[in-house]
């Protein structure tokens, strides 16, 4: 029911002075009043002994602040959503952001954007929270004292040509920035730009150069791949184009019936990843072993029959099977290597793809979207700083003091630089050691552009006027290029004047509305591997302990550490929140004589860190996986002191893993906050799974878990207007995007580490993960678990005050303001999806954060139960529009937040009489089942059993 609009300027221009409230709101963001009201209610009723809801309302009286003038597209109370893009390490993902009266509240994917197709990852969902972070820097600082931004920029713009000017920033793909960089170089000759991210992809381009003679970006077409072999590539979870690839892979993967065809996935990786949980043959391998596997695979596909020597039998079998599958499906298979793997592995993989005829069919190559992929990086900058060539250093966003390898001793280097300026959203570790600080605008406050992974130019437009005295990257760089009053909007319009020239403004507005400029994807290049270097010799793996450095699925490289939603997001396989652990395999844990929460010390040369252990079946032996991005010492109270900073032992190169490393049990222990403690189904058929062959033989294997059960209760749902949800577990990677989406949509509070340890997390939607262990193999089944909206709901009949009961359209309704908090419903809920407000979690919500609250969802006060509502606010809103227009609800008109976010589209929701829609057709499939069906609760959420497609040859 939200309408997409183009240019936001008129809306923004009409705002009165105070930017923290969105003015013109005919009900100003009233969470505060709501909360006070709840309290007053409490007090009033408490004293009175009886009271009515209206009873305690008279003071404080709400004020109404109508706009002075209304832009035509804005109707107070009706949300609008606008297209923009979020950029992570240079790659843009198109988003639609929903706003209420110029107040962004919720992020969705942009269906028209090639890197999103309407879906999102956790980072995108959570980014709206960063916008309202009360600890964002509010103005520029000069040596710690506030100063004026415009004067600062003017001074920068008026600087004489400088020598020894360096920039350090995340990898960039913005065409506009490219122009500005050129302008800077022109104005300040000899200026150098170093692009660096802790999760650098330099080795990817290096690998391409080895293979093809020049840096290229591989474009994978998973929709056409019957067989995928992944060498440490979490392509559905942790790669620049993951959102798109997850969707593509799922298309080829999902079974539509017992007879259907599904792709097969071979995957070798140190620790289970989201992608790993879908793998048919998951081979736990230490990072260093990946190279060997790559080499073995290469020689195998090239026809070498003799198995390469230094592989274990299991690895050999895996390689052989993969090779034969790849070979037998020429042009319908592909191999992909993890970004962090060394260049040589990438080169080898290109060679393999060449050998199996993937290149040109399932893999295409384009110029990288990234600027200067093999240009200057941190090492170059470091040596320049070392040799004192750097006079002025401008660091944008990236946080080297925190992330740089300990060998560099970056703080010391920084001290050598006469003039340092840091631009970032917070006063983080690096900012504190630079003499100038400029606040960086949130992307929802900025004008800009960037390229998607496939090169499509995505536009970034602001959704709210700048909350603080800040600049965007483009404006900052423009200032160095001599622009005295850099204005993002102007810069972008100038840059795209010619794109829009043909039809002028209208086209421009169309592009803005679309969020992406059509047909700007980079063209495929004609390449053939081996043109460059011969297949390189790969270094072997030692037998000593390795530490594998992973990006955190929650806080990435640490840049999202200030985001409490992400901090409290359970990690796909360990379910750990608020921190990182030393993840090891059971065998290794036995070898070290440690268990969960025992602290171990990881020693690499002179450097060491202490972390609590987490034992994860399916992990590679003699290898410890640690997540980056924790243990921040600055950057807001949420980020600081959570987890352990493992950058302190991370080697400069290869950055992916460290070896040899000593692992010593210190004897200490440290609490980890995980949301799931038992991962074994105990023989209860809760999360069903089967192999494709078995499914073909017995399609009805879940029959006992669906269909009617005898009941002496009458049938209630006489009308056929009923809502339902279907979830296909075979394409659920456990990425948890849905969890954050739900949190953003439904004003779900965070409870902090102690809260999680006390089992009081509030997520309405959680992802239960079960590990089915058979020998070396571990099958991971992710089961998104939310309110099942049972037709015969056990929670309902035990509520003494009707705070939860059933709607005629089949929703299990939860009425917060009626709830008195007996918690009987939670006890009686077999799925344990109900959450309770043990304290007043929303009481101290900062004013800025309150702006994020979804105005259509009540903010819960203390002492009430809450749970998934199937996003009833969206349902009712759509119904009202339909009623107004005197029509039926159309298929697809209502989507729940989790459904919208899910990259693979595993969650489907809709009306059960809309035949032809996924939600209806899927639940007709034979592998559909209801969890705990035998209880007779008649859940409205149907699950589809997970089907795997192992290679018959590999049955062991």
């Amino acid at each position, binding site marked *: 029911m939200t309408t997409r609009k183009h240019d936001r300027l008129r809306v923004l221009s009409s705002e009165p002075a105070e930017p923290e409230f969105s003015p013109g709101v005919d009900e100003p963001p009233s969470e505060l009043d709501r909360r006070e009201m709840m309290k007053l209610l409490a007090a009033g009723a408490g004293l009175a002994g009886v009271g009515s809801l209206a009873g305690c309302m008279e003071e404080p009286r709400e004020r109404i602040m109508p706009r002075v003038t209304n832009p035509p597209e804005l109707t107070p109370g009706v949300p609008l959503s606008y297209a923009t893009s979020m950029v992570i390490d240079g790659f843009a993902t198109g988003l639609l952001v929903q706003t209420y009266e110029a107040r962004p509240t919720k992020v969705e994917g942009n269906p028209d954007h090639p890197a999103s197709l309407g879906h999102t990852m956790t980072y995108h969902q959570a980014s709206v929270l960063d916008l309202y972070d009360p600890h964002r820097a509010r103005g520029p600082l000069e040596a710690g004292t506030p100063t004026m931004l415009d004067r600062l920029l003017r001074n920068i713009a008026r600087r004489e040509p400088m020598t020894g000017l360096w920039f350090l920033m995340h990898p960039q793909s913005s065409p506009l920035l490219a122009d500005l960089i050129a302008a800077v170089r022109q104005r300040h000759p000899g200026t150098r730009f170093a692009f660096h991210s802790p999760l650098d992809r330099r080795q990817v381009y290096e690998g391409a150069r080895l293979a093809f003679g020049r840096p290229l970006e591989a474009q994978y077409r998973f929709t056409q791949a019957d067989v995928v072999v992944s060498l440490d590539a979490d392509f559905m979870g942790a790669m620049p184009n993951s959102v798109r690839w997850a969707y593509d892979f799922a298309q080829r993967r999902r079974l539509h019936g017992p007879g259907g065809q599904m792709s097969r996935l071979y995957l070798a990786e140190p620790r289970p990843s989201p992608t790993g949980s879908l793998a048919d043959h998951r081979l736990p391998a230490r990072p260093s072993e990946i190279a060997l596997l790559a080499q073995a695979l290469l020689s195998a596909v090239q026809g070498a029959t003799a198995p390469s020597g230094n592989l274990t039998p299991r690895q050999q079998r895996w390689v052989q099977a993969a090779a034969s599958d790849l070979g037998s499906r020429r042009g319908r298979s592909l191999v992909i290597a993890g970004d962090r793997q060394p260049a040589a592995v990438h080169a080898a993989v290109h060679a393999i793809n060449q050998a199996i005829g993937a290149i040109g069919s399932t893999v295409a190559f384009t110029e990288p979207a990234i600027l200067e992929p093999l240009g200057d990086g941190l090492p170059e900058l470091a040596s320049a700083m070392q040799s004192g060539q750097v006079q002025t250093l401008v660091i944008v966003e990236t946080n080297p003091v925190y992330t740089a390898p300990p060998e560099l001793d970056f703080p010391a280097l920084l001290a050598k630089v006469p003039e340092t300026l840091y631009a970032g959203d917070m006063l983080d570790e690096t900012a504190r050691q630079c003499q100038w600080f400029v606040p960086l605008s949130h992307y929802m406050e900025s004008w800009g552009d960037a390229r998607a992974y496939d090169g499509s130019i995505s536009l970034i437009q602001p959704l709210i006027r700048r909350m603080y005295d800040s600049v965007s990257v483009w404006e900052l760089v423009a200032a160095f290029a001599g622009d005295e009053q850099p204005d993002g909007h102007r810069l972008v319009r100038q840059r795209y004047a010619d794109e829009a020239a043909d039809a002028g403004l209208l086209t421009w507005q169309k592009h803005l509305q679309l969020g992406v400029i059509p047909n700007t994807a980079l063209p495929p290049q004609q390449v053939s591997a081996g043109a460059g270097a011969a297949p390189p010799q790969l270094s072997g793996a030692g037998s000593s302990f390795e530490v594998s450095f992973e990006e955190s699925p929650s806080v990435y490289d640490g840049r999202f550490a200030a985001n409490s939603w992400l901090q409290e997001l359970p990690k796909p396989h360990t379910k750990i929140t608020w921190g990182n652990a030393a993840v090891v395999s059971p065998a290794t844990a036995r070898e070290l004589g440690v268990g969960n929460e025992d602290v171990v010390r990881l020693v690499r040369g002179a450097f060491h860190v202490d972390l609590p252990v987490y034992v994860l079946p399916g992990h590679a032996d003699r290898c410890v996986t640690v997540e980056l991005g924790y243990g921040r010492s600055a950057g807001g109270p949420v980020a600081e002191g959570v987890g352990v900073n493992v950058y302190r032992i991370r080697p400069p190169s290869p950055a992916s893993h460290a070896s040899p490393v000593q692992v010593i049990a210190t004897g200490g222990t440290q609490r980890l906050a995980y949301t799931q403690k038992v991962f074994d189904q105990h023989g209860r058929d809760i999360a069903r799974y089967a192999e494709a062959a078995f499914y073909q033989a017995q399609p009805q294997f879940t029959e006992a878990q669906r269909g009617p059960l005898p009941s002496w209760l009458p049938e209630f749902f006489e009308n056929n207007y009923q809502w339902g949800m279907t979830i296909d577990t075979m394409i659920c990677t456990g990425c948890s995007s849905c969890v954050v989406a739900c949190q953003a949509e439904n004003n779900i509070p965070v409870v902090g580490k102690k809260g999680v340890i006390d089992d009081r997390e509030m997520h309405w939607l959680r992802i239960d993960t079960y590990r089915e262990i058979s020998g070396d193999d571990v099958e991971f089944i992710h089961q998104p678990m939310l309110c099942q909206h049972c037709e015969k709901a056990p929670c*309902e009949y035990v509520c003494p005050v009707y705070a939860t009961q059933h709607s005629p359209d089949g929703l299990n309704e939860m009425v917060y303001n009626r709830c008195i908090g007996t918690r009987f419903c939670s006890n009686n809920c077999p799925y344990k999806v109900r959450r309770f407000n043990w304290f007043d979690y929303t009481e101290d919500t900062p004013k800025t954060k309150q702006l994020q609250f979804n105005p259509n969802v009540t903010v819960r006060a203390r002492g009430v139960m809450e749970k998934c509502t199937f996003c009833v606010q969206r349902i009712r809103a759509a119904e009202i529009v339909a009623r107004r227009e005197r029509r039926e609800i159309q298929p697809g008109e209502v989507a729940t937040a989790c459904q919208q976010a899910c990259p693979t589209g595993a969650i489907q929701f809709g009306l059960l009489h809309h035949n032809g829609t996924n939600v209806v057709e899927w639940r007709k499939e034979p592998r559909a089942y209801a969890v705990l069906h035998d209880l007779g609760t008649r859940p409205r959420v149907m699950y589809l059993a997970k089907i795997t497609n192992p290679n018959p040859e590999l049955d062991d």
Partner: protein
Amino acid sequence: MADRMLAEYPSEAAIVHAIHRLREDGYVDIEAYMPFGSHVVEHALDRPRSRLPIAIFVVGICAALGAYLLQWFLVAYLYPLVVGGRPPHFPLAFIIITFEMGILFSGFAAFFGTLGLGRLVRLVDGVQGTPGFDSATRDRFWLEVSMRDPAFDPERTRQVLADAGALRVEIPEGSP
């Protein structure tokens, strides 16, 4: 204004004897006061059984019916809501409260019935304060003869009571 004559007896047996004597002499309007509910004395006075239980029963039944009706009215009629697929009118679930209310109100009936029929809830009656009468709640039995009794004659009655073994005979000054 005095309206009765009281006599104190040492024991159950003594007062029973006295009661028989009086009845032989044709006294009808007599009453006893005793430290515990003695069947023997009651038997001697031979009074009809108390009607209180019937009243209690009636109240209890009405309360139960009322409770059931109220539940039906609120839950099945005024705002019928579906919980756990149960029908709005769900007798099985209504039974308990019905039963409890029946009990509760019979309890009230029994208690307040006693207060009412027993003429309680007062501080002053005709006999309190009569010299020595406080033994009536301890260990002595008192016999009361109303002066309105046709057979009553101040002298003779006093004599009869004394002969029956009264420890003392008193005439309380009038009740309010």
